């Protein structure tokens, strides 16, 4: 009997080691996680607001530049201006939920399994380099980050396909993107979840293409399950066919509508945690594309009736957002696909510590060579549309995916709107796609 119990204990211990143990984050951990700049902002020699970093002086700033950005500054493709580091406070409901549920969540036995998660940031404590699953925990923080809140629309959303050498804009696409969370909702009714939800969906993304003519009225619906081990479901409505086609999962690694970005690249990483092995590579202070939208010199190309203006692009080929860059605390996380046939060998994500946003990502091809650089400009919501003020949602505001091998890029200009009326749950049904034109 003793041996039996001893055996059971060993098994339990082994499982605990494998799955991660409950670790109650302290109030200090949570404070540090959400308010890292409360007492001081990061500093680096010469890095002050208004500093221009270019080909001539980049060597002085190598320590605060990610390799992708540095590569382009060094090549003279772009010069950047440093902005003042500011706090991007996340909605109080999310912080409170983190506090309430601290210590209740732990990793499961396998990547992609999470036990006890309710809401908020699952692992607010500082990542531990000695923890072999620290990268996975950060990936969960990203997945269950505030991101777009419970529901948000990007409407309109302008994409440009650009030749980096010639600067020629080869293609314009006008989208509307809509996001909704079904579970772990905090700031839009209903909370904490939308029910009924028998499939246990976690999140859905609905995309509608407005222009150009050959892809007009194309619609995409991606449904992600709460169970990370379950494959996403994706449906595509082709305007010229007028019917919904189910997509196979392989199309998430396809160049989305011929752009430089794949569905899996959306938001830095748009896939299952279990599809990757995650490694925490350290925490550093880096210049990141965080800024106040209304303080930027904005584009005059599009003019909305409400006066909203979009982030302008410049640099080589027009591939770089004309924004300021803040020195921020960043966790470096590396993800490598489990599938050996995946077109990517690994990604290096520069995850903003305060917001868990992956606002810089380097993508490496199967040979291990740098393939693409993803920049995701983030604006403070209080410096944006009136309806976004006070939302506590850090808004994606501009992106560029640069294919450094093809010398090509895809840029995106957002008009993010945290408006629950723009994301009714019925919008995310397959039938809604059929009910169009």
């Amino acid at each position: 009997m003793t041996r039996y119990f001893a055996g059971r204990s060993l098994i339990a211990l082994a499982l605990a080691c494998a799955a991660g143990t409950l670790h109650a984050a302290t109030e200090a951990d949570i404070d540090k996680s959400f308010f890292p700049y409360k007492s001081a902002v990061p500093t680096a020699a010469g890095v002050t607001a208004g500093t221009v970093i270019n080909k001539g002086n980049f060597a002085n700033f190598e320590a605060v530049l990610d390799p992708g950005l540095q590569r382009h500054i060094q090549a003279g493709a772009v010069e950047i201006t440093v902005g003042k580091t500011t706090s991007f406070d996340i909605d109080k409901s999310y912080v409170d939920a983190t506090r309430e549920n601290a210590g209740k969540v732990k990793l499961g036995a396998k990547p992609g399994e999470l036990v006890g998660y309710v809401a908020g940031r699952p692992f607010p404590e500082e990542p531990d380099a000695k923890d072999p699953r620290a990268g996975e925990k950060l990936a969960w923080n990203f997945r269950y980050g505030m991101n777009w809140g419970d529901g948000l629309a990007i409407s309109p959303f302008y994409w440009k396909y650009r030749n980096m050498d010639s600067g020629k804009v080869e293609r314009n696409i006008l989208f509307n993107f809509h996001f909704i969370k079904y579970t772990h909702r905090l700031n839009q009714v209903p909370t904490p979840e939308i029910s009924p939800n028998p499939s246990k969906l976690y999140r859905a993304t609905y995309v509608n293409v407005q222009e150009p003519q050959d892809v007009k009225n194309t619609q995409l619906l991606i449904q992600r399950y709460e169970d990370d081990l379950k494959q996403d479901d994706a449906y595509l409505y082709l305007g010229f066919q007028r019917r919904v086609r189910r997509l196979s999962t392989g199309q998430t690694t396809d160049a989305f509508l011929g752009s430089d970005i794949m569905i899996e690249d959306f938001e830095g990483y748009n896939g299952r945690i279990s599809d990757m092995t995650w490694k925490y590579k350290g925490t550093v202070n880096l210049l990141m594309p965080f800024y106040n939208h209304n303080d930027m010199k904005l584009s005059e190309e599009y003019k909305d009736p409400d006066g909203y203006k979009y982030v302008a692009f410049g640099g080589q080929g027009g591939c770089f957002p004309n924004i300021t860059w803040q020195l921020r605390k960043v966790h470096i996380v590396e993800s490598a696909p489990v599938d050996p046939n995946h077109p990517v060998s690994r990604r290096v994500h520069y995850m903003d510590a305060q917001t868990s946003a992956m606002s810089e990502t380097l993508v490496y091809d199967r040979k291990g060579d740098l393939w693409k650089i993803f920049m995701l400009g983030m604006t403070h919501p209080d410096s944006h549309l009136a309806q976004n003020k006070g939302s506590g949602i850090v808004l994606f505001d501009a992106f560029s995916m640069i294919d450094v091998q093809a010398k090509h890029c895809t840029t995106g200009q957002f008009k993010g709107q945290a408006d629950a009326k723009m994301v009714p749950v019925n919008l995310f049904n397959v039938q809604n796609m059929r009910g169009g034109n």
Partner: protein
Amino acid sequence: MKAAGDFSRPKLGVLATALSLAAGAQAQAADENLPDLGSGASPWVADVYYENHTARRHDAGLAKFRNTLQLEADKQMGDGWAFRGILRGSWDGVYRLNRDEYGRGAGGPIELENTAAPLLPPVPTSAGTPLNRPLVPHGGGINNAIATAIGLPPTNAFGFDLAANPNDGMRVLGDRWHRTEGGVAFGVPVRPCDTDKRGCRDFGGYGDLKLSELEAPEFNDRLDFLREIYAKKTFPLADGTELFVKLGRQQVVWGRTDLFRVLDVINPIDYSRNNIYDELQDIRIPMWIAQAEYRMGASDVMQDRNVQVVWNFDKFRPNNLGQCGSPNVILDAGCFFRGMANLWDNGGTVANFAAVPPGTAGAWAATDFGPHQIGIRKVYLPEWSLSNTQLGVKYEGITKEGLAFSLNALTYRSQLPSLHAFSAGTVNPFTGGSGNTTPPADGVPVSRLIAFDVHYPRVNLIGGSLDFQIPDANAAIRMEAALTHGEEFQNTARRELFSENRVLRTVIGVDRPTFIPLISKTRATLISAQLFWQHIFDHERHDGPLGTVGIPDWEDNFIGTLLIKGFLAGDRVSPQLMMARDFRAKAFTIAPQIEWSVSDDFKVTLGANFKYANGDSHYKFDDTRSANPYPPFTTYTAAGQPFVPGSAGLEGLEPLGRFRAGPIGAAVAEDDIYVTIRYKF
């Protein structure tokens, strides 16, 4: 400077045109108690497209020079109502630029096979040529005088008035895809119906079109230039569910297939536009339809649930199979219809018909039938009435495991014509009277006479569809099945030469995005394969003394399709290869195409479609020459056929081989290359 949404900024001139063209629709909307279209909550948004489609056909020359102007207009009307209109007008210059093939100069004098020639005397025919020629002109067959000379009553009614039905502006039935090969054939007028009225019948939108209507097909009495015009609204209900309504002229798409249809049968199809090779959205014939969807959303066991009711209250329209003489006549059916209608109206020469003398294999004489003896008499198009409207119901859902499925039921009118043989009111060519009056068959009811009326029977359909993904195979699977009751098939074993049979159609499709480095390392190539299976229940076949009798269609047939579509240069260049194989027809088509989006607004498409068939002998089937409607005159066997009419099974390619050849086999000689340019203003 562009404003947000500038891609779709309204253009005032276009808008004015749209509004004036949509005047009829406004009236219709008022009838439906819709909100006033002019007092909307947002401005009109309109796009205008121009498209030119030019095709060259092997042996025929220019086969299409279609210029299309299309306007797509949208407006949020307020109170949740949205309006959408698509106006399309086209003008096809092929009828003027290739007038000798498709226009007023098409066709000419013809000659028809006369395999009994060596056994026939050189007596003069109505055409002035001797009867014993292996090829005789239209009017060069057995006429009254010759029939009298060989022993038929002088009152026989063979022969026809060549002045009313001259040997001009004709082609030989089936010459677009086969030789006569000892079977039946006859002349088919091919010029537009304002040039040559012979054989013109309205089959429901085609068959009786004049040149201007062929050139500009949307401008007709059904107002087809109003391609789509509808209003829609979603009504939120108290319990969180929704009622979605869409009223107006529209397409309602059921099913999950490409190229061929199983469940997607609510709207008829215009095959005259480009056979089977256009996207279905461009060739569905929009109908006035009211549809309502009760969108229930999720439940405890289903992630999504919807019930859709579709009421097609439009006046019936069948598929447009193409008017004979125009470039696209699917199955060559329109030519058979026109030739048969001409035979009924005016009589005509039928190749290789009369068994003179009976029982000599391979020896049949060209025969001049008179009016009202054989042919197509009348097309019964269902008039508008409540009982003739069409109603469909669909339940569609997604299970909590992610399986998407639908259950469908539809009662509709067949979109394909059914030929019902009749005898009352026909002239017995052997006696000039009506019916069988010659002993010993005196009083035997006439049956299996190749005189037809055209009907569009009611069909009831039940079916379903589903799709799911197989992650390990990186593939999405889609399936459909439909069981119909009420479809009619030609059946030479039946007295009326048709039978009603239940039909099961199924399809399984596999879509797999595949990285093919040769095409692109970053963009997946879509590989999409489909396998269609059609089974006809109670399929009737009998062996007759001269061949098989019964239903010409295959009891079981399979069609496989394969689409390989690549995407290059940011999806601005898209090469594709479409292939389809009709297994029982042993026919194959391959259609390479490359699209190039020169800019966001300008696209050029180059393509071709080539067809192949492995011979045509397997298309031959009982052509009802030996159906023996008028015994003892119509005996084809040496031993003689019984006086109870019934086919001996003598076979040929016409008229039923087309059902075995299918749309690919019957177009085997129509290899096209084409260029399409499309510009958005």
